């Protein structure tokens, strides 16, 4: 009985924070860590893949667009509340001047890099809620929410 209460508490309210230098070799670690954290909600493989892909897009954007491949730090905060995982990916990079333009499918600010311009479109399609806040010269914060487990009675 004690155990069950403990598990319920963990499932209702848990969090994870990560901070790491903006280097591409950390992208894999970041998306795997977030997916592992979200796995406690017992999601389907498809839900987990979607979350992992969305996180990968946001972290990659922080590194190549936020910091334009120069040194910096990426911070991730994940929280679980009532079957929903919220992931915030933040950088202190150059920011986005025009978020509407950045959201356009196939738009890329760095065509020389062979990017497809589909990163934000993929995020929008793979999570339930996506909010992008950015202050030019200060940084960008991407907040995503995705329901991973059905709403249970009593929550």
């Amino acid at each position, binding site marked *: 009985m004690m155990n069950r209460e403990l598990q319920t508490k963990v499932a209702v309210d848990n969090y994870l924070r990560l901070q790491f230098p903006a280097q591409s070799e950390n992208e*894999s670690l970041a998306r795997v860590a977030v997916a592992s954290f979200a796995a406690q909600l017992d999601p389907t493989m498809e839900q987990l893949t979607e979350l992992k*892909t969305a996180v*990968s*897009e946001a972290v*990659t954007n922080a590194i190549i667009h936020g910091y334009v491949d120069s040194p910096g730090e990426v911070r991730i905060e994940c929280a679980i509340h009532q079957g929903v995982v919220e992931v915030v990916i933040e950088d202190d990079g150059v920011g986005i001047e025009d978020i509407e333009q950045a959201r356009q499918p196939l738009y890329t600010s760095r065509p020389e890099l062979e990017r*497809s*311009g*589909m990163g934000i479109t*993929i995020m929008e399609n793979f999570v339930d809620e996506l909010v992008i806040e950015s202050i030019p010269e200060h940084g960008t914060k991407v907040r995503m929410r995705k329901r991973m487990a059905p709403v249970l009675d009593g929550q």
Partner: protein
Amino acid sequence: MQLQVHDGVVVVKLGGELGHHEVETIRNEIEAELERTGHRGLVMSFRDIDFVDSSALGLILGRYRTVTERHGRMALCEVNESLARLFELSGLRRILPVTATVDEALQLVREG
């Protein structure tokens, strides 16, 4: 990644993760092989891929540009569900053929 040449067509078999960090090396190796062999046809197989994001689309579109500039042809094959979904979102299927097997992809590229 495995690089092979089948009767004048470069066949790339990709495995593992295809994110931003991974695609750079892959791109350089494919470009080097096309340059070295002088072949104009390219087949990319995604059978052993564990993870993909939009970086894979960039990799594919970049190779499509190279091959097209050389007046060659290109086809994709053995695409898993995750990658198929990215193809749908990006409209990539409108410009590149996707087949079930390497043999079918090779046939399409050779017919060109």
